[in-house]
C-alpha cells in the first residue's frame, strides 16, 4: 500500500518540474506545456487524496481541472496563432513592446 505521502510528494515533484519549466521556457508553446504539467500534478494529488479519504470530491475536481486545461489550451493556442501570424515567432522575448 502506497501512502498518501508518496502521492503528495510526487505531486510536489511534478509541480516543481512545472514551475521550473515556467521559469525556464521562453518558447511560449513549451511554456504552455509546463502549465499543463502543473495542472496534471495537482490532478494526481486530488485523485490520491480522494482515494484515501474515500471521498469523490477530489475526483470531480480533477475532472474539472482537466476540462479547464482543455479550454485553456484552446484559447492559448488561438492567441499564439494570432501572435505567430503577426510576428512570425512564438518566443516570448518578442513580446516586449510594452514595458516600463
Amino acid at each position, binding site marked *: 500500500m502506497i501512502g498518501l505521502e508518496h502521492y503528495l510528494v510526487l505531486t510536489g515533484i511534478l509541480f516543481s518540474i512545472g*514551475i521550473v519549466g*515556467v*521559469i525556464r*521556457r*521562453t518558447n*511560449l508553446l513549451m511554456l504552455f506545456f509546463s502549465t499543463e504539467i502543473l495542472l496534471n500534478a495537482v490532478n494526481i494529488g486530488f485523485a490520491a487524496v480522494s482515494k484515501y479519504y474515500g471521498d469523490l470530491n477530489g475526483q470531480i475536481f480533477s475532472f474539472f481541472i482537466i476540462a479547464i486545461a482543455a479550454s485553456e489550451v484552446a484559447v492559448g493556442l488561438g492567441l499564439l496563432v494570432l501572435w505567430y501570424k503577426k510576428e512570425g515567432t512564438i518566443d*516570448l*522575448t518578442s*513580446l*516586449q*513592446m*510594452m*514595458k*516600463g
Partner: protein
Amino acid sequence: MEKYLYIALFAPLVGSLFVALFASRPKMLFTGILASAFIGISMIASFVLLFHVYNHEPLHVEMMDWISAGNIDIPFGFIVDEVSVIMMVTVTLVSTVVHVYSIGYMDHDKSFNRFFTYLSAFVFSMLILVMSDNFVGLFIGWEGVGLCSWMLIGFWYHKHSASWAANEAFIMNRIADLGMLMGLFLIYWNVGSLQYSDVFEAVKTLNPALVGTIGVLLFIGAMGKSAQFPLHTWLADAMEGPTPVSALIHAATMVTAGVYLVIRCGEIYTIIPQVGFGIACLGAFVAVFAASMALVNNDLKRIIAYSTLSQLGYMFVAGGLGAYWIALFHLMTHAFFKSLLFLGAGNVMHAMHDELNIKKMGGLYGSMKATAILMSVASVALAGIYPFAGFFSKDKILEVAFNEGAYFLWFALFIGAGLTAFYSFRLVMLVFFGEKKYGHELHPHEAQPFVIYALMPLGLLAAISGFFEHSFREFTTRLLSDYGVHLEHHIEVILIASTLGIAISGIAFAIYMYGKRGGFSACWEKSFGYKVLSNQYYIPKLYEMVIIKPFGVASEFMWKKIDVKIVDFTVDLIARVLYASGEKSRKMQSGNLSDMLRWMIVGIVILLALAIFYRPMV
C-alpha cells in the same frame, strides 16, 4: 476746555492731512502758510490750556476706546496736566517757529508741500506723545514721531546718505522701542492697566526689583529716542534731513521725548533710585562723551547735534537724580536755544549753498548780522552764561549732582560745561568771524526778513526764559515731586561761580584760539586723540563691522545655505527620492513575460519561506 485740547491736538493733523492732498504737486505757497497757521492755532490753544491748568486744574479726557481684548483696555485718553502742558507749549511754540521758518527755508524745494505734510504730522505725533494719559498712547506718539523723523530725515531721499540715515534712525529707535514695549508688557501684567494713574498707584505696592526692571526697560525706550549711548549714532547722521527738521525734531522735541518719559514716570523712578542713578551716570557720560565729539567736528550741523546729545545727557542726569522739574526746565530752555541754533545754522547753510564744513566758512558776520547775533545768543545760552536761559537750567543740574553727593557726576558735568562753551564758540568763531575761507563765487546773503522775525521769539526766549524758573518750579511741582537743592549758600555760590568760570574760560579759549590764533595747529589734527574724536570714537565703524555687516552675511547665509541648501533641499530630496525609487521600481516592469512569471514565483517562494520559517505567535 476740552475743546481747546482737541484743537491743540488735532489742528496739526488737520493741517497735515489738508496739505497732504497737495503733497505730490509742485510747490504751493499756501500749503506752508496753512500748515503754519494750523500749528499756530494749536500753539494758541496750548497757551490757553497752559493758563487754564495754571489757574484751574489739569484736564483729562477720554476720547474713545482703542484696544480692548482680554483684560487689556486702552483708550484714546488725553491728559493735560502740568507736565504735558509745558511740553505742549514748548512743542507747539518751536513748531510754529520752525514752520514759519521753513516757508522761507524750503522755498526752492520742489517737495515743498510734502515737507509741510510731514512736519505737521510730526507735531501731531509729538502732541499725542505728550498728551496721552497712558503708556500705549505714548507709544503711539513715540512711534509716530519715529515715523515722521524717518520721513523727514529721508526727505531728500534721492541722497543715499539721507535715506540711509533715515533707516538707521528708525531701526535704532526700534531697538529701543522693543525694550519699551517689553516694559509696557511687564507693567500690564503686573498692574493690569496701562493708564498712568493706575500704574503710578500700583507701583508703590509692587516688588521693587520688578519696578526696577520696569524702569530699566522704559529707559531703554528713552535711550533710543533720546539717542543715548550706545544708541546715539543715529542722531548725528540724522542731520541729513533739512535743517528745520533738525531744529524741530532732533533738537527741540523728539529727542527730548526720552527725557519726557523719565519725567512722566518720575513716580516709578523715585521708587528705584539705583536705576535713577544709573540713568544719571549714563547721562553724565553722554554729556562729556558727546561734547568731546563736538570739539573737533567740522560739520556745522553735527556739532550742534552732538551738542544736543550732550545736553540730553544733562537732562538725564537731572531726571535720573529725581530732579524732574529741573530736567523739564532744561528741556524747555534747551528747546528754545537749540532750535534757534539750528535754524540759524540753516540760514548759514542757505547762505553758503549747503556747505556744511565750518572750516570753509568764516567772516559771515558781515553779511548775516541778524543770524550771527541770534546764533550767538543761542550759543551763550547753551554755554550757560548768566542771564541767558541755559544758565538757569544747566546750573541747576550741576547743583543737583553736587547736592546728591555724586561728585564725579558733578565733575563730569562741570567738564562738559566747559567743553560746551568751547565748541559753541568754536562754531560761532569759525562761521561768523575770522577770515573768509569760502570761494569768491559765493555771495552769502541774509535770509528773508520774515524768517528772521520768526526766529525772534526763540531768541527772546533763549535769552529770558530762565527767569521763569520760580514760577515754573511752582507750577510743575504741583504734579512732579519737588526737588530742592539744599546746599549751603556759599557752596552754591562757589558752584555757580566755578561753572560760570569754566564756561567763560571755554568761550574765551575758543575766541582766543579761533579768533586770534586761527585754530589749532595741524599736528593736533594728526594726533590720535583727534582722530578718535573726529571718528566718533570709531563707534559707527564698530557698529558697521560688528552688527551691520555680520547681519548681512548671516542673512545671506541663512538664505543661501540654510534655507535653500538645507531646508528646501530636504523637502525636494524627499520628492526626488520617491521619484528615483519610481525609476528603480520601474525596472521591475521589464516587459519580459519570463520575468513577470518569475516575479510571481519569487512571491510564492518568499511567502512559502515565511510560512515555513517565520512564525509569529499565533
